């Protein structure tokens, strides 16, 4: 038997090689492991209900991504507390805790703050929902938005309104505009003022009434709107405002011909569940899902299975799509390096998606300018699509049934 002699130097060298060999798979694993995605949403505060609604889009994503052959994501939850300063702090904290990509944050003001942090730290941010146009007009390199800007939502909204007017054969002459007084509401207000003349809308806005986003009572605001005797109530707000406003409309015995909402609030599940029959009628002009797309059907099936009795809406659709962008980019980048991820996101070309429009791709500013909006009307506890024609599955009901006749 041959005796092998190993001296001290050989033993050290051998140990080093062995250690490197053992360590190598770990390094490879680290590089190919799940991408750490910090999901910032208003999980508490006055926007908590919508933040939690968005979270459902996160919760149902993993098995769908797996079936699509996309890599796994590790979700790190962050709460903006419906507050701009908290949003900024939590974005910084998520990044310092190891988040390699951020997703969020439903609210334009909070998203603006997060975008500044993402840009400063060089970590990509994929915006799920936020309509303020300025966010993608800052020349940011790390910020991407797969959601229409307030201007696009407004433009599509007016186009869809005109389509509805033509279907029902009615052209209202007067409207009163109630809007939330924050970044989003102000941006939408500017959009309405700029685009109404271009679309040659048949109605004139008699008065614009802005209100506090954390309002607890909208009785004065609704009284003021009612006093204008407008045919149509045009609104830009959120869930809390929609609930308060509807209650006041009922109490003050005012049913306008139509409630036209140019944003969220009026189609969320909590709106349907809280108001029951009183939730029927409002028309929302919103980014929505295309029920004819395969992935939309898959997502809706997963949603209904996970949350029986609930309806899928914008919040889940665009939060899911933001994660889809992240997973798709990570798959193509093959790395968690922020620059590689950003390059991959910039080259995104997803055609098998959920929202209305040709798919997900970003322009030089990081904006998906192909995403389209729908007109949906509340009917029997869920939303049906009434415009555009190619995506419609119901005809518009006009005028709204008076609240007093719904007992």
């Amino acid at each position, binding site marked *: 038997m041959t005796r092998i002699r190993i001296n001290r130097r050989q033993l050290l060298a051998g140990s080093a090689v062995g250690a490197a060999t053992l360590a190598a798979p770990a390094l490879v694993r680290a590089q190919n492991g799940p991408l750490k995605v910090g999901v910032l949403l208003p999980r508490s505060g006055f926007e908590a*209900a919508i933040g939690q609604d968005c979270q459902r889009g996160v919760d149902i994503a993993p098995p769908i991504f797996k079936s699509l052959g996309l890599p796994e994501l590790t979700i790190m939850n962050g709460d903006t507390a419906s507050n701009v300063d908290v949003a900024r702090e939590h974005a910084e904290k998520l990044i310092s805790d190891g988040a390699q990509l951020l997703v969020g944050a439903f609210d334009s003001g909070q998203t603006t703050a997060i975008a500044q942090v993402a840009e400063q730290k060089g970590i990509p941010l994929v915006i799920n929902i936020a309509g303020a146009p300025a966010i993608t007009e800052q020349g940011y390199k790390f910020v991407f938005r797969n959601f229409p800007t307030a201007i696009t939502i407004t433009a599509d909204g007016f186009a869809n309104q005109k389509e509805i007017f033509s279907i029902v054969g009615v052209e209202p002459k007067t409207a009163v505009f109630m809007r939330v007084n924050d970044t989003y509401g102000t941006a939408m207000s500017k959009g309405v003022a700029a685009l109404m003349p271009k679309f040659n809308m048949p109605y004139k806005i008699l008065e614009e009434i802005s209100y506090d986003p954390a309002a607890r009572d909208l009785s004065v605001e609704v009284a003021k709107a009612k006093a204008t005797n407008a045919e149509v109530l045009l609104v830009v707000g959120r869930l809390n405002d929609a609930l308060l406003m509807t209650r006041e409309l009922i109490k003050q015995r005012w049913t306008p011909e139509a409630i036209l909402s140019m944003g969220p609030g009026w189609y969320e599940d909590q709106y349907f569940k809280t108001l029951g029959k009183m939730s029927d009628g409002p028309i929302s002009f919103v980014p929505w899902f295309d029920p004819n797309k395969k992935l939309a059907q898959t997502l809706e099936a997963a949603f209904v299975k996970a949350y029986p009795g609930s309806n899928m809406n914008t919040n889940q659709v665009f939060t899911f799509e933001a994660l889809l962008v992240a997973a798709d980019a990570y798959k193509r980048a093959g790395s968690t390096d922020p620059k590689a991820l950003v390059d991959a996101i910039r080259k995104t070309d997803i055609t098998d998606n959920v929202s209305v429009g040709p798919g997900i791709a970003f322009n030089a500013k990081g904006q998906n300018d192909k995403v389209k909006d729908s007109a949906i009307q509340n009917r029997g506890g869920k939303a049906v699509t009434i415009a555009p024609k190619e995506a419609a599955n119901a005809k518009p009901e006009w005028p709204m049934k008076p609240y007093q006749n719904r007992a």
Partner: protein
Amino acid sequence: MTFDVYLNVAVAGILTGLVYGLMALGLSVIFGVVRVINFAHGEMMSIAMFLAVVLFSAFHLDPLIMLLPIAAVMFVFGYVLQAGLINPFMTRPEHSQFLLLVAVGIIIVNVLLIVFGPDARTVQTSYAYDSFQLGPVLVDASKAYAGVAAIVFAAGLFAFFRFSLVGKAIRACADNYTGALVVGLNVNRLYALSFALGTACVGAAGSMMTLIVDVTPNLGPTYTLLAFVIVITGGLGSMAGALLGGVLIGLTEALAGLLFTPSAKSMFAFAILVLVLLFRPQGLFSKRAT
């Protein structure tokens, strides 16, 4: 805009202001007697609001019917809090009292967040959407019931302080601390009783407030601030001043929202506060300087 619109908004503002006033009345009672500024006042009201919500959702008990039981529970809570926690701070500097009550407020908010979560909760009574047509005025039924209940509760409290022996003893204690000790009044017990009456007020106001607003744990600090605005405007320590201050603030917010922009209506309430502090620091309805 027609006169009817102003009338409708003014009535709604007055009714809401009455409930605000009852809430502020509790703060005024506590300060007037115990000389402690309750920085957890709004948070205590949010406890009462959640009690009302839980009782309604579990047993369908109307907040108006539960007004007295909730006030009683809050009375006990206030008594225990004052006797057990605040009383040792009575002789300490004011900043210690301030920090103690701010801490109590923060604890209340966070406990409510842990127990109930951040979601807004609502009490959907059978009359939640009702309104009365009184000539040109359309009165919100929930606000009307809450406003009337606030008047009845405040009247009961005034009567208690004016006619009952205990009420008179509390007033004596507030007017002359040394004199109260000399005549043999149990001042510590009366302090706890006064604090308890203040929290009972806020309990009743909280129960009624659930008819008007949705309930979240984060409401507390907002209402603490509002209560301070009202009592400083009305006159810190003046019971009538608190109630009238509430009506004034409710009315101001409502009319300012109608005449100017609704999103700035709180600004007008604070503008009144600044004017009062500048030109009548003892408050609009208080005779003495505090």
